[in-house]
């Protein structure tokens, strides 16, 4: 179509949320006194005014088809007050003003196949990313990994038996859109990119690709007359950062693209400052459709944490208290030379004390 016919956008930006807010929340905005947790999936917030808002939280597949979305709306009208929100972990929350509405709502959701839970000290919905369904650089799928794991963790989502909240994340490449988590299941490449030299010249802006490499392992080169790029395989840390700007630098490999598991990422400030996750297991096969090996390790870690941690200890607090050696002992996971950090600033991760649990 010719530009002229085109409609100029209204640059309205981020819409006002207040217009969609439940009236009781609007009325008591900023005036909440405390909350209780009557049962998994249910929150009772009490306002200074005495008003109450009851929240029922349910997990869904993150990739919603419109049928599912309409179903959720239907339930929201029949059993709730027509006001909902989605959490940052893509769970749906129904807010109602009367306790009486809670049970019918829960039943309706359960009958429709949604999972009520995910509150407080449960295993929260796994935050996931795009993967094979949509991304251009994924080493694995995200929706599939999450679905497979949630199938196995559903009881931990429906119940609150963990010492504290458990926030699990996944990422389908080392770029790590999923961010950090109490437990993170992330792609970890193990071999340098295979370069399709015929394509580099046309597809890649070579100087900027060279600039992307964290360890300066890429240099311009000539292969049968064509300008291309080559990788110093001694230096290469197989991170895949060169792949998005230069797809011919194929980092993904059905065999050598593995999964790694990290624990102890905690972003709340509660008890201790926000902490980064630490590597615990790697070399895990990237095994669709259900990734059983990765799930088994996650469940092992969760079981150990559940048995050994104290109330209110997040995974990082727990390991901080019992020490990493015992973490590896209790989980039976191997400790290798790869667990010793060698990235910048890593000296601070060495044990410069006599602190040893014996």
């Amino acid at each position, binding site marked *: 179509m010719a530009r002229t016919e085109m409609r100029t956008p209204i640059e309205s930006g981020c819409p*006002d949320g207040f217009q969609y807010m439940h009236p009781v929340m609007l009325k008591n905005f900023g005036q909440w006194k405390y909350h209780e947790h009557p049962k998994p999936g249910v929150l009772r917030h009490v306002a200074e005014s005495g008003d109450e808002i009851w929240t029922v939280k349910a997990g869904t*597949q993150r990739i*919603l088809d419109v049928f599912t979305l309409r179903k959720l709306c239907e339930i929201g009208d029949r059993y709730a007050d027509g006001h909902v929100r989605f959490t*940052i972990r893509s769970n749906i929350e129904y807010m109602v003003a009367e306790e009486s509405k809670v049970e019918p709502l829960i039943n309706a959701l359960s009958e429709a196949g949604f999972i009520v839970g995910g509150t407080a000290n449960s295993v929260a919905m796994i935050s996931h990313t795009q993967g094979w369904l949509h991304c251009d650089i994924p080493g694995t799928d995200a929706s599939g990994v999450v*679905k497979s794991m949630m199938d196995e963790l559903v009881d931990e989502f429906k119940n609150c038996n963990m010492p504290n909240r458990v926030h699990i994340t996944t990422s389908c490449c080392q770029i790590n859109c999923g961010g950090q988590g109490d437990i993170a299941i992330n792609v970890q490449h193990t071999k340098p990119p295979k370069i399709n030299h015929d394509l580099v010249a046309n597809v890649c802006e070579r100087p900027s690709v060279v600039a992307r490499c964290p360890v300066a392992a890429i240099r311009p080169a000539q292969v049968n007359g064509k300008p291309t790029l080559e990788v110093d395989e001694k230096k290469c840390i197989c991170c895949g950062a060169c792949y998005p700007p230069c797809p011919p630098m194929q980092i993904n490999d059905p065999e050598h693209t593995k999964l790694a598991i990290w624990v102890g990422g905690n972003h709340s400030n509660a008890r201790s400052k926000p902490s980064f996750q630490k590597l615990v297991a790697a070399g895990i096969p990237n095994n669709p459709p259900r990734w059983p090996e990765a799930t088994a390790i996650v469940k092992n870690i969760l079981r150990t944490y559940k048995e050994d941690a*104290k109330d209110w200890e997040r995974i990082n607090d727990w390991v901080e208290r019992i020490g990493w050696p015992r973490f590896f002992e209790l989980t039976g996971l191997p400790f290798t030379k790869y667990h010793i950090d060698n990235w910048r600033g890593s000296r601070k991760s060495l044990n410069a004390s006599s602190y040893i649990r014996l």
Partner: protein
Amino acid sequence: MAKPNHETPMLDELENGPWPSFISGIKRLRDRHADERINGMANDLLGQLEHSYETRKGYWKGGTVSVYGYGGGIIPRFSEVGKQFPESKEFHTLRVQPPAGNFYTTDMLRQLADSWEKWGSGLVTFHGQTGNIMFIGATTENTQHFFDEINEYGFDLGGAGPCVRTAMSCVGAARCEQSCANEHKIHRTLVNNFTDDVHRPALPYKFKFKVSGCPNDCVNSIERADFAVIGTWRDDIKIDQAEVKAFVDRKGRQYIIDNVLTRCPTNCMSLADDDTLEIDDRNCVKCMHCLNVMPKALSPGDDKGVTVLLGGKRTLKIGDLMGTVIVPFMKLETEEDYERLTELAEETIDFWAENGLEHERCGEMIERIGLVNFLEGIGVDVDPNMVSHPRESSYVRIDGWDEEAEKWFQRKAEVKAAASA
């Protein structure tokens, strides 16, 4: 008449198990939706995805697609195996900014569903990790139509590419007793001040705002935002001693000692022998732990405000960075207060736009040039709250010491004057 369904033996495995299945959802679109366009799209999408599962590789590539007047907001996807799966060969995602706080009425959700069925695949996510509604799967042509339609009733695209990205805020004051700020106003004030930078990517790289109402940081702002705003308070924690006693009676002394007192990062709490709880608020760092454990007995103070941290991001390319405190505390009551916050964001983005390298995040730039140079660049004074501790290394040239010390004393004097004025 629709062509036969692709075999999806591997994906079918993902229909088993109690958790809602996205595969079943896509199949519903394939089998039960009225619109053949959608049936076909879903079928070929499943076909390509099955192919990925079998070969353990992805088959999407990027490109450039945008709506009229904008440069970003869409993640273009063209299939590398479009021949086998023609009906989903264009499968772009529109990133649409949700209402601050992610509040919806069911009516509005239905309206969005209607529009999306008309123009898109029927697959949608509330929300992506950055916070956008992701309408997944539209042809190049239909992205424009869909956008035009929802833009008419108040929705706009978010960011993609080197630009200001969609922001995120927690549920906060709408429902949470811990909230120390109007998260949604902060969220919209900030991001909507930069709509041009959201829609027309021209920055060194992406820039994200995130707002949490308290240090529990339910939106991971310190870890994931270039610009993190976190609610906090300045005065004393409110203690309801009756509720404390009730808690002790219920749980026992040892429980409160082991679960509250000894978990306080600064050991600033003490349980008197008569079971009254004493907090040395001077040394409370507002970590939230005790308030989380005893929400009935303890509440944040009344003199509320926010802390601002800059530079959080993920791994590329120097390693994961958390944000660094730039504004220890500021009030957010008057419009002037909000303007001050917006100005800080403008100063930061302008300085970074000028000094950041291509594909360099704000935090990486700070790391490269040093925090002090960055502060000078945006005109913010150094403050001991910006560091966990002063320097440990004697390797520094300090011949400007006296002038720098003078600056500190002058600032102190000004504050004093202002206070007594």
